[in-house]
């Protein structure tokens, strides 16, 4: 009798600007998957120790484009080596709320050379599936204002622009990020979802795609 094939791990990434609804979608996906298989959920900028260093550095405003990029890469590498890679090898499905493409977009918008950024992150395997949740910046902005009324500095470019209101900063910064995402969507084969649809419609689409991937090459 054929031995049962060892299950291969997978990375499913969700990308999109702040206010695109990607975190809610990622959490819905995580909950749905975790009833069915070993699932691990990870978020951008959440390394136990680097996260704190970044927070302090932003408060003191000491990051330059290159150190902004490298310190976020350190945060990612910490989560990658400690959690993502071992889980992947052990057959987990890793749901990643933002992955390396967030760095591609945010770092290059800050003036780092995109090919350098890609090189920095080249130690990480690419996701098996990347969802890009596309929303117009105005929609993202109004969602954020409705839900909590203030805009975090990181959502408005962390001081990239002088003399702008948080709203203007948000619109400027997120539009630049969108431009990079749109380019990457083609290059990297993202599954593009219209984030203006209802959360349920978006989630249904996500589950459909994930289902195809997970259960087509069955274990």
């Amino acid at each position, binding site marked *: 009798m054929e031995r049962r094939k060892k299950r291969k791990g997978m990375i499913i990434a969700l990308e999109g600007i702040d206010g695109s609804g990607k975190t809610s979608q990622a959490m819905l996906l995580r909950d749905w998957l975790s009833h069915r298989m070993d699932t691990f959920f990870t978020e951008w900028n959440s390394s136990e*120790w*680097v996260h*704190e*260093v970044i927070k302090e*550095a932003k408060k003191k405003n*000491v990051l*330059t484009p*290159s*150190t902004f990029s*490298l*310190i976020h*890469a*350190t945060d990612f*590498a*910490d989560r*990658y*080596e*400690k959690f993502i890679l071992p889980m992947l090898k052990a057959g987990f499905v890793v749901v990643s709320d933002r992955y390396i493409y967030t760095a591609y977009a945010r770092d290059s918008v800050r003036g780092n050379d995109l090919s*350098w950024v890609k*090189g*920095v992150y*080249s*130690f990480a395997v690419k996701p098996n599936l990347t969802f890009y949740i596309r929303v117009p910046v105005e929609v993202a902005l109004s969602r954020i204002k409705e839900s909590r009324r203030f805009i975090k500095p990181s959502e408005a470019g962390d001081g990239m622009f002088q003399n702008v209101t948080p709203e203007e900063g948000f619109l400027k910064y997120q539009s630049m990020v969108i431009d990079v995402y749109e380019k990457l969507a083609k290059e990297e084969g993202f599954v593009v979802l219209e984030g203006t649809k209802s959360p349920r419609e978006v989630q249904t689409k996500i589950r459909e795609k994930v289902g195809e991937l997970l259960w087509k090459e069955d274990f």
Partner: protein
Amino acid sequence: MERGFLISVDGVEGSGRTLHVESLKKWLEEMGYGVTTVGIQMSKLMSEPLSEVKRNIVFQRFTLFLAYATDLADQVENVVKPSIKSGFIVIADGYVNTLKSWALTRKLSQEWVNNVLSITPKPDVSISLISPPSVIIRRIIRKRGFLDPLTSAVDLCINEDLYRSFSRYVNKFQSNLTALTEMDGGSVFNTNKSLDQSTKEITYYVEGYLKR
């Protein structure tokens, strides 16, 4: 105003890096130059967090390397570049070639490592220090009283005692460092001699650059 310049001093712990950085600094200051020093794990941004977590992430080579790269980049941006611009000489107590040798000895890809560090300015004078492992280990033990597994490549020490493992590590590290230094036109000095003699050789070399 005349632009300053950058002297890198690379080598493994115990190679005499800090000692020679200090004596170079003194020598240059006596001649009237303004000197700033930077070095590995000396940034405001990363120095403390690194010393706190290093023990926990000793097997996470990409993370450690990127943390060191962040540490170096922070000093490059906030100290090296502005100091050079305002006419200072900057001496780095450990620079790009130390990080690269660390990484190559741990089998990280050279292409990846070169790309990450490609944002750092090339030193105007590149000095690397080497010594036989037995001499290096004696120096470390004299200073600290013991071989600290953390700085002695414990991540590469499987099935071996610390002394032998570290000797092999120093050999590999130094052959990487020598190759890297020679490749970009720097100079390697063996510090297995009297401090006076080493200092003379190094200052003579830097003098050559100053007189160019």
